C-alpha cells in the first residue's frame, strides 16, 4: 500500500500529462477536470521548474471544462463536448489532446467516446485517462507517450536504418530536459544517426508522427518511458534499450558504448568518437586542476533526487570528480522490481565507493538517513566530521544545507532558486557545465 508523502517532488498523472503535452510543439491540451486542477498544476510546472513559463498553451491559457457540482451529479460529457467544439474554434494547434482529472473519471465520463464524436473533423484529437489518482508525474508522461505512439505515430513497414528515437528524459521533472536532450541527440548524431526526441529544439509533431520508421528506441531511464517503449515495440515493431542517464565521461562512455553495440557500430569508430569528446572535456576540466588541488576542493556529498539523476550524479561525483558521495536518497515512487534495477546502478563505481542508497519519498527523512550514515560527534575531541561537504538536490535541500552549513546546488526538481533555459548536465558538455556550477558555488565567497 502506498503512503502519504512529506513534501512530494511531483504532481499527479494529470500534471505529468499536461507537463508533457505543453512541451510538444503546437499541441493544445484540453482538460476535462475541475477548475482548479490546471491552475494548481501550472504553478508547480512553471515556478518549481526553473521558471519554465506558461508555454504556448498551458498555464492559465489551458483549455478546461471546469466541471462543478452540477456536472459531477449529472455527468460531464456534454460539457466536454461543448468545450472541445469551442477549443477548436479558438485555439490554434496541430494536435488536440483531451486529458482527464480525478473527478470526471470517478463519475465515469467516457472522454474517448467524446473524442470519437469529432472523428469526421479536419483535426487530430486524442484522449487519455490521466486522473491524478493513477499516479504521479512520471505516470502521466508514460500515459501520454503511450497514447501518442499508439494513435499518432504512423505505422510503416519502411524503416530508416539511420534513424533512432530517444526519450526517458522527462520534461519539467528533469528541469534541464531540453538542454539534456540536445546534448544526447548531438552525441548520437556524431555516430552518424538521426535522432527524434520529440521535445527537443527545432522538433515538431512530424518527428513524432514519423518515429515509426526508426530502427531503435533508446530510453534514457530505468523507469520513465519504459511502458511507452513496450507499446511502441508492440505497435510499430521497433525494439528498445534502456540506458541510464549519463553525466560525465564515465557514464557517457557506457551510454555510447551500449548504443553503438546495439546499433552494430564498429567499436573502433565509437572509441574514436569517445576519445574526441573526452579530449575536449579534459581541455576544460584541467583548468581547475590548480584550484581543486591548491584549495583541497574534494568534498563529501549528499545526493537527493529522482532515480535518473541520483545515479548519474553519484557516478559523476565518484568516478569523474573524485568526490565522496556518502548518501543518496531517491525520492521516486518505485516498485520493488524498479528499485532493484536502480540499486544496481550504484554497485560498479570505478572508485570502489559504495554510497548508501535509500528509497524514501519524504523530504524530512533525508536528515534522518544522514544521521544513520554519519554518526554525531559524541563530545570527543577528535571527530571525523562530515566536512567539507556539498549537497546536490532540489530547492528543498537548501534547509538541510543551511543546517549542515554546507554549500548546495539545486539540480533536481523542484528548482525555484534558479532560472533554467538551455542549460544541460547530460554527457560531456553537461559535465563541464555542472563542474562550473558546483565549483562556482565553492568559490563564490572567496
Amino acid at each position, binding site marked *: 500500500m*502506498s*503512503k*502519504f*508523502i*512529506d*513534501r*512530494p517532488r511531483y*504532481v*499527479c498523472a*494529470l500534471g505529468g500529462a499536461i507537463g508533457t503535452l505543453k512541451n510538444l510543439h503546437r499541441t493544445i491540451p484540453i*482538460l476535462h477536470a*475541475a*477548475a*482548479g*486542477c*490546471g*491552475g*494548481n*498544476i*501550472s*504553478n*508547480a510546472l*512553471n*515556478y*518549481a521548474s526553473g521558471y519554465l*513559463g*506558461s508555454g*504556448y498553451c498551458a498555464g*492559465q*491559457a*489551458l*483549455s*478546461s*471544462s*471546469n*466541471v*462543478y457540482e452540477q456536472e*459531477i451529479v449529472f455527468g460531464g460529457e456534454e460539457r466536454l463536448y*461543448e*468545450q472541445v467544439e*469551442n*477549443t477548436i*474554434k*479558438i485555439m*490554434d*494547434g496541430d494536435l488536440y489532446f483531451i486529458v482527464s482529472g*480525478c*473527478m470526471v473519471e*470517478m463519475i465515469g465520463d467516457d472522454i474517448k467516446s467524446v473524442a470519437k464524436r469529432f472523428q469526421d473533423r479536419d483535426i487530430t484529437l486524442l484522449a487519455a485517462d490521466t486522473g*491524478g*489518482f493513477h*499516479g504521479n508525474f512520471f505516470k502521466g508522461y508514460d500515459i501520454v507517450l503511450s497514447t501518442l505512439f499508439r494513435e499518432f505515430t504512423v505505422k510503416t513497414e519502411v524503416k530508416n536504418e539511420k534513424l533512432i528515437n530517444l526519450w526517458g528524459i522527462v520534461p519539467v521533472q528533469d528541469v534541464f530536459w531540453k538542454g539534456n536532450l540536445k546534448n544526447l541527440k548531438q552525441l548520437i548524431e556524431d555516430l552518424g544517426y538521426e535522432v527524434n526526441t520529440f521535445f527537443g529544439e527545432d522538433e515538431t509533431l512530424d518527428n513524432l508522427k514519423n518515429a515509426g520508421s526508426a530502427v531503435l528506441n533508446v530510453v534514457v531511464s530505468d523507469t520513465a518511458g519504459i511502458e511507452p517503449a513496450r507499446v511502441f515495440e508492440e505497435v510499430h515493431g521497433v525494439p528498445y534499450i534502456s540506458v541510464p542517464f549519463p553525466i560525465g565521461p564515465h557514464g557517457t562512455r557506457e551510454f555510447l558504448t551500449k548504443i553503438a553495440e546495439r546499433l552494430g557500430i564498429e567499436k573502433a569508430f565509437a572509441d574514436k568518437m569517445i576519445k574526441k569528446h573526452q579530449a575536449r572535456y579534459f581541455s576544460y576540466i584541467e583548468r581547475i586542476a590548480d584550484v581543486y588541488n591548491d584549495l583541497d576542493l574534494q568534498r563529501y556529498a549528499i545526493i537527493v533526487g529522482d532515480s535518473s539523476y541520483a545515479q548519474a550524479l553519484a557516478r559523476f561525483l565518484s568516478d569523474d570528480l573524485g568526490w565522496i558521495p556518502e548518501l543518496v536518497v531517491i525520492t521516486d515512487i518505485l516498485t520493488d522490481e524498479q528499485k532493484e534495477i536502480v540499486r544496481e546502478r550504484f554497485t560498479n563505481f570505478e572508485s570502489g565507493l559504495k554510497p548508501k542508497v535509500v528509497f524514501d519519498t519524504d523530504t*524530512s527523512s533525508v536528515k534522518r538517513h544522514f544521521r544513520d550514515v554519519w554518526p554525531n560527534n559524541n563530545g570527543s575531541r577528535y571527530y571525523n566530521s562530515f566536512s567539507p561537504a556539498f549537497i546536490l538536490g532540489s*530547492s*528543498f535541500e*537548501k*534547509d538541510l544545507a543551511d543546517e549542515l552549513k554546507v554549500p548546495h546546488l539545486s539540480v533536481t526538481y*523542484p528548482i*525555484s*532558486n534558479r532560472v533554467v533555459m538551455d542549460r544541460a548536465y547530460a554527457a560531456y558538455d553537461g559535465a563541464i557545465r555542472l563542474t562550473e556550477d558546483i565549483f562556482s558555488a565553492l568559490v563564490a565567497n572567496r
Partner: protein
Amino acid sequence: MNYISEKVPPVREDRLKACNAFGGSCCELARKGKKGCLNGVKRTFAQTQGCQLNLSLAILNTIRNAVIVVHGPIGCGGGSLSMAGVNKGFQKLRDPNAKGVIWLNTNLDDNDVVNGGEEKLRQAVLYAEREFRPEAIIVVNSCVPAIIGDDIDSILEDLQKQVNAKIVPVHCEGFKTKIMASAYDSVYHGILRNLVGRPEEEEKVVYEDELEVIKEKYRKSRTVNILNVSSMSRQDEEELIRLVKALGLEVRIYPCYASPDDFAYVGEAALNVSICATHDDYFVEHIKEKYGIPFVLRSIPIGIKNTNQWIMDIASFFGLEEKANKLIEVETKELKEALEPFKEQLKGKRVFLGGGEIRILSTAELLQSMGMEVIGLKGYHYDRFAEPLLDMIENNENIVFNVATGQPFEQANLLNRLKPDLYIGHIGTNGYTAKQGFPIFPLFGQSSIYMGYQGAYEIVRKIARVLRNPSFNRNFVGNSKLPYRDEWYEQNPFTYIDDSAAL
C-alpha cells in the same frame, strides 16, 4: 451571520450571489449586480483557473508553526512546490526561527478511490505530530475524498484526542464553487471553529490583580486587529501599523503569517479592521457575532482617497477624527508634492487593470488621480463589495468591465482592441499579456509595498519606471505567438459567456 455550527461553510455563489462571468460596461455590471441577475452565468469555453483549495493554501501556507495535510491525490496542493524555499523568507520577516511551509499529501491512489483514504489521513496526521510537533495540523480536504465519502471530521475529532497540535479541518473541495474566493470563508471557518478563543480555565487565572484587570481592559479598548492578506508584503503591514499607531492605537496582525496559538487572542481587541471585504467579511461578521467586536470593512488602503477613508473609518470608531484629520492632512500634503513630478509622464496614459475586484478598483482610482485614463477592468469575480469602489471610479460608464477568473483568451482579445499603454495584472496571466507586447506592472507583490501613502508613492514611482523602457515585452511582438486563432480576435470578446441560465 452564523454558520459556525456547520461543518462546512456555504459557497459564495449562494452566500453573496457572486459571479465570475460578465462582459460589458461598468454601469451595466453595477445595474445587473444590484438586481442580482449575474448569478448562474457560465462559459461555453473556459480556461483553467484556481480552485478554493489552491487559494486556501495561499493563506494557510503562511501560517507559522503549522503542518498542512492535503488530503487528496498526489497533485492536489502541488502548487505549493512553487513556494519551496521562497515562503520561508517571508515567514522569517515575522519570526527569525520560522521553518517555512511544511506540507504532507495523503497520496490517494486507485486503491483508495475504491476503499477510502481514511487510514492514510490518520497516518499523515500522526506523522505530522511526531515529526514536527507543530502548534496546529491543518487538514485541507480535496475533491476526491469528498466524493468517496471519507468522513474527515470524525476521523480528525478522534485523532484530536491523540495529538497535542490543534487539528484544523478546512473544507475547500475545488468542485464545489466557481468562486475561488470561497476559499477565504473555508479557511476562516476552520480557524473560527478550531483556533479562535482561549480555553476557559486560562481566562480565569490571568490578571487577578484588580489594577492589572483595568490596565488590560484599557489596552484591549485601544487595540485593533488588522486583517492582512497573503498577497501583501511585510512592508505593507509596516505602513498600516505606522498609520494606525499614529492614531495612538495598538495593532495586531491576523491571519497571514500568524502562529496558530495567536488566534486564541483574536477576541481581545476593540475593533477588527479589514483591508479587503472580499477577504474578510465572513470572519469579521462571525467575530462580531461571537465576541461583539465591531468591524471596519469598507475600503482597502490603496491610493490616497481609499487610504484616507480607511484611516477615517478606524478613527471615527474611537472618536479620534480630529487626530485622523491632522494625520491625513500632513500625509497627503507631503505625498501629493512627491507625486507631482510623475504627473507629466503619466498623464493621459491608457491603462487596463486585471485581478481581484477590490484591488483593481482601488488601484484604478489612484491612477486616475494621477491623470491616467482607465480604459478597462477585469475582476476575478464580482459581488456587492465592489459596488462602492465602482462608484468611486470616474467616467465609469465608458470603462469596459470583464468579470473573469483568469480566462486570458477574453483578455487577449480585449487588449488587442483597446491597446492600452500599460497593463496592471494579477500573477498568472502576465506572461501571456507580455507576449502581446504591453508594458506590465504587477497588481500586487509579496516583496513590495502597495498600501498606504508609502504604497501609493511606490506604485506610481514603479509604473513610471516600467514605462521608461518597455522594450522587454515589446520585443515579443512578432517573435512570440499566443495560442489563439486570428479569427478569435475579430469576434466579440464575450462570445463564450452564456447568460441564458442566469437567475
